């Protein structure tokens, strides 16, 4: 489908790529986010909660 690929450059070629599109086009930034968010809010927060359970008298 080579002839279709030519059409992919539609739109104004000089128009800057919007910020969010740049984010979504960057797999390694997404990888970083997709690992950091759950590691912090789920694993680290969870482990801290378990570690702070008090000892029974």
């Amino acid at each position, binding site marked *: 489908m080579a002839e279709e690929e030519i059409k992919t450059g539609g739109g104004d070629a000089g128009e800057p790529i919007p910020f969010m599109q740049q984010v979504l086009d960057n797999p390694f930034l997404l990888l970083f986010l997709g690992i950091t968010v759950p590691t912090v809010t789920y694993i680290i927060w969870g482990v801290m909660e378990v570690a702070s359970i008090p*000892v029974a008298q």
Partner: protein
Amino acid sequence: MAIFPPPQRVWWRERVEKTEVLWVTLALTWALVMFFMMPYWHFAGDQNLSNEAYRVNPEAYAAKAEAFAAEHKVREDATSGMPVVHPPAGSDVYMIARLWEWWPILELEKGQTYRLHLSSMDWQHGFSLLPENINIQVHPNYDMVVTVTPTYAGEFSIVCNEFCGIGHHTMVGKIFVK
């Protein structure tokens, strides 16, 4: 098509059609309703698990539970020979989960509130109170405290619903509510 790169170089500024906007709005609203339902139930609802739990050593927990059972024992259960324990309203009630029994049998009063302690002597167990269908995970080395208020009288079973080895399906306990 989704299997080809987007035809436009800049697709982020594409106008989103109104059906999609409407659906996203509805879905987001519903998401927020569901989110706030949980904190709301902490204020308005009667069924919330406490976060009260302690690290405990199994022998120390067993000693507490045995002292508790000896103090409030009223009789022995005919089928199992297990002590039936009738604690005073409002008191701390201890239950042991172990391979493969819930010990002891409890006798509680309708409408009264008890601080129920749950801990395992060995593997993890699942406290499933039937036919109410209240389910709580029971861990070794942790004493979880749940304040319970039985709402009606009758015979209740505790079925283990966390797999705990070959005798798992024989692990049944009882709570009588008067």
